């Protein structure tokens, strides 16, 4: 449900480096965070807490790429930093708005 009142975790140094890797490898061209970014790949806002996918799944893609995703030749260190970044993003909230958060005026209420 709503994450409006969730305490926001401050960025840690490893996640900050991961944010730079995200930008330097231009991940936003293909992936979205909170629905903002490219459409080639899935939205990664909550990939780390996804019960079916999660960190191991994400690491495989970061290491090898996929049929659609090129191998970006990331070092082990960069993969760790990107993982820390995506975990930090994951804790900030949910990218999908729940049906119960839609008000009768068509707006969202994310307080509860």
């Amino acid at each position, binding site marked *: 449900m*709503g*994450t*409006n009142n*969730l305490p*926001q*975790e*401050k*960025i840690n140094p490893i996640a*900050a480096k991961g*944010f*730079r890797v995200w*930008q*330097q*490898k*231009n*991940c*936003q*061209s*293909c992936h*979205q*965070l*909170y*629905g*903002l*970014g*490219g*459409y*080639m*790949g*899935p*939205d990664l806002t909550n990939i780390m807490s996804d019960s079916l996918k999660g960190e191991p799944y994400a690491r495989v893609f970061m290491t090898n*790429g996929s*049929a*659609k*995703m*090129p191998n970006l030749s990331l070092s082990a260190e960069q993969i760790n930093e990107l993982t820390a970044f995506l975990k*930090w*993003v994951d804790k*900030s*909230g*949910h*990218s*999908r*708005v729940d049906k119960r958060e*839609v008000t009768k005026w*068509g*707006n*969202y*209420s*994310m*307080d509860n």
Partner: protein
Amino acid sequence: MNKVFKTYIIFSLTLLISALVCGVLAAWSFLYPENYKYILPFQQLRPFHVSSAVFWILTGATGSIFCFTAPLLKKKEEIFASIFMIIWMIAIVIVFICYSFGLYGGREYWEYPPAINIILLLGWLFMIRHYWLFWKVNTDRKSVYIWMWLTGIVFFLFTFIEQNLWNIDWFRATFLKEMTIQWKSNGSMVGAWNQMIYGTSVYLMVQISGNKEIATSKWAYGSYFLGLTNLIFNWGHHIYNIPTANWERTIAYSISMTEWIFVIGIIQNFKAKLFGDYKHKHLLPYRFLIAAEVWVSLNLLLALMMSIPAVNRYTHGTHITVAHAMGTTIGINTMLLMASFSFFTKNESYNGLTRFAFRLAQLSLFIFWTGLIVAGILKGYLLVEKQVSFNDSFAATLPWLRVVFYAGIALTISFLFIIRQLFKKVNYQNEDI
């Protein structure tokens, strides 16, 4: 037309060609990534496409403003605008060199290494200086386009700085703050360049019709203030689903519902005033202005729907967002800039191949736009309502995206023809434009 300005206009049109061609190549790579992910890498083509489009709009808007303001200045006073144009052309070339070598580090739409923004910012100060010189000698304070250009130029400076605040650690301490500022600035920046382009369109309407009232009417000022309000407050629809404060959504939602109604009013007012010989004298610019009017109406409807959070829940992050972006950048901004370029290069005849290219552009853009909307509806429904996997939703949209791709090719061909005509006209221009 001085040499720097002539080069700048050719450069600007080249950016439009780059945006179209890179868009087609990126779309091909998007459809067939398995075969082309290394030959035509999407993650490399998309920044080329997006930055070309953004810089086409900005160079087109500033080029038009220069063209219509320079006649009031002495030749030696054009130096500041010339410096701006030279700096921006150099910076943009550096941007594309960086992209060619896979050097990124920036943010969405501005993906190049952020240090280049210092050069662009420096250049913009010279554009401000140019406009200030114009402002001092221009005695007309009643025409709304004077204020629209001023607003656009000043707010671009603010939003461009704001867009780069992420370089300071404090602004990225928490992810929600980071994203909110980023998308607030991007949303407002679009409002800033719209002020420059809509200002130019009002100026053109006055020049074509000979009716100064178009720029001084209550409608004109109502539209201006509504646009300004949207620029300042209506960025919230970009981040509806980010768990920020509810008041942000409420304000954006409320203001969105009034968007662009006055703009349609102004253009309709212009159409009513346009008559007789004037209509035939400037036919191609007129056609582009009328086309923009149709696209304003279509995109207004789409924007209004997307601005309802309950609908945005389905459309956010789908191709409907792309349809909205393409509809505004091509359908509105590019049509208005084409009207401006056709006007000041005196490329005004609307017949034969020009007429065919113009009609092909409108038809292909409509198919392109509709295809994106259908793909977006499908994706939104499958992901939100049916909760299918990303790959399944991707596969379901592919037939519609192929339609978009072929329409994009037709759109590119039609614009290439019109741009070719403009190139010819620019090359024939003498000093006295």
